[in-house]
């Protein structure tokens, strides 16, 4: 019985928390092959080599959620529902597309319609953490990993409940 319990305990897998991307890895994360219009393209090889953690790892998503609050995204995008100063992020309607690398480019370089560039304020891995969180915010299908829940009363479905599924599709 005790052996069985130990064996079961040994089988528990703790999610890996990558706290410190090696500087060369972080530098390589910036190598997005973008189309000249800054839409689409391809994430860098290292993104796949890492196992796409920014969309599947709860710790990385939670960090993204923290950065969303810390870096004032809510000023313009609210809790995702959008404001007069910035578009909604949870309705599944994207001006530039739902791909990770597109969202990453929106954050890094900004967008002409009034989205500020964040590359001087966030490190490479932070940009990816935030992109992963924003993508989940506007997803049509739920994910297995979710960031920590909010302390405030909810104003929208939880991030991993695929909020875009509930939102009316705009133009």
């Amino acid at each position, binding site marked *: 019985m005790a052996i069985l319990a130990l064996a079961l305990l040994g089988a528990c897998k703790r999610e890996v928390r990558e*706290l*410190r*991307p090696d500087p060369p890895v972080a530098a390589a994360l910036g190598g997005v092959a973008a189309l000249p219009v800054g839409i689409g393209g391809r994430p860098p090889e290292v993104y796949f080599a890492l196992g796409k953690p920014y969309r599947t790892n709860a710790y990385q998503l939670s960090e993204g959620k*923290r950065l969303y609050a*810390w870096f004032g995204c809510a000023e313009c995008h609210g809790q995702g529902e959008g404001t007069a100063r910035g578009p909604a992020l949870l309705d599944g309607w994207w001006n530039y597309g739902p791909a990770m690398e597109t969202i990453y480019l929106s954050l890094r370089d900004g967008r002409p319609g009034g989205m500020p560039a964040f590359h*001087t*304020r966030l490190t490479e891995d932070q940009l990816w953490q935030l992109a992963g969180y924003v993508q989940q915010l506007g997803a049509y299908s739920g994910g297995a990993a979710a960031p920590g829940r909010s*302390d405030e009363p909810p104003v929208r479905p939880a991030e991993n409940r695929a909020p875009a599924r509930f939102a009316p599709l705009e133009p």
Partner: protein
Amino acid sequence: MNGAAQSALAPGGAEAAAILSLFWPVTALLGAIWLAVLLVLALGLWRRPGAAPRRAGLAVGAATAGTVLVVIGLTLASYLVTRPLSAAAEAPLVVQVQGRQWWWQVTYPAEGDAPGFTTANELRLPLGRPVRLELAAADVIHSFWVPNLAGKQDMIPGRDNALLLTPRQAGIFRAQCAEFCGMQHARMALPVVVQPAAEFARWRAGQAAPAAAEALAVAGRQVFESRQCSACHTVRGSEAAGSTGPDLTHLASRETLGAGLLPMTRGALAAWTADPQTLKPGNNMPLVPLTADELQALTEFLALLR
């Protein structure tokens, strides 16, 4: 914080002394009761076989009465000793301390003609003057505890707690977060420096001023302003005005770096700037990739922030 005292048995303040005056009598009394119980138990176990059963009625009655008396006595004593601790003192120094994952934000509101300011990771108090610490939390529950000065008080998000204390002895005391608050809870300490009133007033005036002019003149300032550092940290007098990390305006005047993690030396500053995630894994400052020249310049700048 080598050598900084952290012990509830060496009180440096009125409140800690009061609590200690309760601690020894209670410990002695309860220790004696424990010994007595063991003695009775041993007597009971060593009864000769075949001896006539003893009547327990009187002993049980006496023990019950004794227990009731001891509980009432101790409750009364602890009430009498701890009640005055929460009585408001006249004209206390008010300091706001906010717990964050995993550091402390410390705000001295303006008082008379002394302007207010915000600093971090160090609390300084004048000797002999009552202090009212207003305790808050930004993210999760923390707990503020300087064993040498006073008892514990929780810091709870959305709730205003206060702790009153009167330092009676100059020196550096170590405070420690006393409520598990996440990965770096163990490295969330705070040096509390108690100093004579005149010295404290000088320190206070210095902290309220913007950063030292010689720091603002070095090249490292531009690195700090143009890199990610300025998004999270404030250095008054420069363009850096972030508020999610500790205020660094007078960083080098502090006793320790990283909430009691390392002594404040130039080497520690360089090590922290180069790789905070190895020194304090999981803390909320990311590893910012820097060239050797940038690191050199930044370290010089930080070390001049006195």
